[in-house]
């Protein structure tokens, strides 16, 4: 079942939660709505489920307008952030709930619930109360309960938000396998980019009630459409630069920017991801490198701090003749292999492998 969201707006008092959002979820896709809190992602999910009513806009499922359809009739499986399990009911009755209210015969309820308990690997726990389960088990009960009614789409609100790190990663992989098995169109909300990128076929980045970018995880990560997306997807160094004649300059290093071919110079912002910077001893100067934005040359800098974070060594540097701070992430192996000691005060050359340039537009908010 495909979902098409057209120009959905929703306000809570003076707060505009969603501002003419349009979104397509192809049949069988696992899509992530990624954004900071208050970006409108949960509101959008609830509107798709019918739990919230949009002020404007249309929701279409497989060509059918379901905007006015009550949540009860939408055949949507919804997994709530804190699971919202029925506390006074056993695990069995929780999963059976959707079938019971549909007056499904008892024998059929029993076999369906057993089937789901097997699917979510909770056989034998049907008699437990939710309070007697671990967080990961509750999460799976919530999923089984949502799947029991054979929904056409599955919506999950921060499905792993309330779990600790280890369980989160396990459940994530398990959910991905489950999705591959049953192939149901699914949308989940998250503020964790790692989660979105690992799990989803498609990522939608939201901010201030608008969609910043939609695409595959690779496309979104490699070609961020806006400074916000660039900023939101991990650490980034931001510098002021200049752009003219199809090239931007960052500390004298030219970066190709064909989108601005004009001769008149303009202020621009240069975004550099810490792991896309290379570090080398100052004497061995860098060569030209290629990427999305082509950058060539290297920048002399002195090391301010070095922190080891497992496989990654983070180096804070200050480019010579500047008071800005630049963060460089180097694989620890590479840092060890350098022909120099990475210590505060050491002089290094920084070579950008990739850089992105954005012209500050009217929509740009930092």
């Amino acid at each position: 079942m495909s979902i098409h969201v057209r120009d959905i707006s929703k306000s809570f008092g003076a707060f505009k939660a969603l501002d003419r959002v349009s979104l397509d979820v192809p049949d069988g896709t696992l899509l992530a709505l990624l954004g900071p809190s208050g970006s409108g992602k949960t509101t959008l999910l609830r509107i798709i489920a019918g739990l919230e009513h949009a002020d404007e806009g249309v929701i279409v499922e497989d060509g059918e307008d379901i905007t006015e359809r009550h949540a009860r009739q939408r055949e949507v499986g919804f997994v709530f952030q804190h699971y919202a399990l029925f506390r006074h009911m056993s695990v069995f009755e929780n999963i059976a709930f959707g079938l019971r209210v549909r007056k499904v015969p008892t024998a059929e309820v029993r076999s369906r619930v057993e089937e789901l308990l097997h699917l979510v690997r909770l056989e034998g726990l049907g008699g437990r109360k939710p309070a007697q389960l671990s967080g990961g088990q509750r999460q799976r009960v919530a999923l089984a309960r949502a799947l029991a009614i054979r929904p056409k789409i599955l919506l999950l609100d921060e499905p792993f938000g309330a779990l600790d790190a280890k369980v989160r990663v396990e459940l994530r992989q398990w959910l991905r396998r489950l999705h591959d098995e049953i192939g149901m169109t699914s949308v989940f909300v998250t503020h964790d980019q790692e989660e979105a990128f690992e799990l989803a076929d498609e990522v939608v980045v939201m901010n201030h009630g608008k969609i910043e970018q939609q695409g595959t995880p690779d496309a979104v990560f490699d070609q961020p459409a806006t400074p916000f997306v660039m900023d939101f997807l991990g650490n980034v160094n931001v510098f002021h630069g200049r752009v003219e004649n199809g090239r931007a300059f960052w500390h004298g290093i030219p970066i190709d920017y064909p989108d601005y071919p004009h001769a008149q110079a303009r202020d621009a912002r240069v975004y550099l991801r810490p792991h896309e910077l290379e570090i080398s001893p100052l004497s061995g100067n860098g060569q030209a490198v290629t990427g999305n934005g082509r950058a060539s040359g290297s920048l002399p800098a002195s090391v301010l701090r070095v922190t080891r974070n497992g496989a990654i060594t983070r180096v804070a540097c200050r480019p010579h003749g500047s008071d800005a701070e630049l963060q460089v992430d180097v694989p620890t192996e590479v840092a060890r292999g350098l022909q120099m000691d990475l210590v505060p005060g050491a002089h290094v050359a920084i070579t950008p492998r990739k850089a992105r340039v954005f012209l500050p537009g009217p929509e740009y908010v930092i």
Partner: protein
Amino acid sequence: MSASQSRAPHASPAVSAALVAAAVGIVGLLIVVPLASVFFEAFAGGVAAWWTALAHDPDTRHAIWLSLTVAPVAVAINTVFGVAAAWLVARFRFPGRSLLISLFDVPFSVSPVVAGLALVLIFGRQGLLGPTLAWLDWKVIFSWPGLVLATTFVTLPLVVRELIPVMEAIGPEEEMAAVSLGASGWQVFWRVTLPNIRWALLHGIVLANARAMGEFGAVYVVSGHIAGATDTMPLRVEKLFQEYRTPASMAVASVLAGLALVTLVAKFVIERRLEAESRDLEAARSTAETPA
């Protein structure tokens, strides 16, 4: 999960002993001794005399019967109102919501006698609705409906006040989950909302019932105090006492006091269940992984 032990951090043994003694002394003097003396007086002439005083006086019998009918009706009205009002206030945000919550509390702050008088002003013969009620031939004041009205008024906050915090703590997610699973409004109420609030509701009902049975002031004004017709148990106690029939008065009083003890036990049991439920709620919300 470990129950947290709360302990006053700085109280010296002498101070805490003095405080305990003071508390025990006050509770004993003000509550235990007077209550015990009611039973003592009631049974001073033996169980047979107690029983005769209760069962062989037709006016007393009628008073007991009246209390046993008025209180449940008032409590039933309160239950329906309380659930609906608490749901409205806990699930929706609307202008005037805080004012409405404050209004629920008015019966607590208004003297019951004033409440009774207010009802007479509305429903009495000279009252606002007097002509209409006369035309309909409905007697409210000095009659059974008046007793129910007055009792309902004074017990109004008990159920709704009990439910609002519990409903707010539970939140709307379970109800939303039920709707998304295909449940109708009534199915959500009977299968999800009501089971979740049942102990809080029962707590409110028990408190409202105790208050309804014991109500004197408001009922006194609207009843007209007619023996064998509009006298409830508390009114009967007062009347017998005024007539210097102390043993009979104490016998009826002992029934009311006994009811209070039953309420106390019920309250204790229910409160334990409520605590267990709120612990469950917390556990269900907790982010910690607990090995199952």
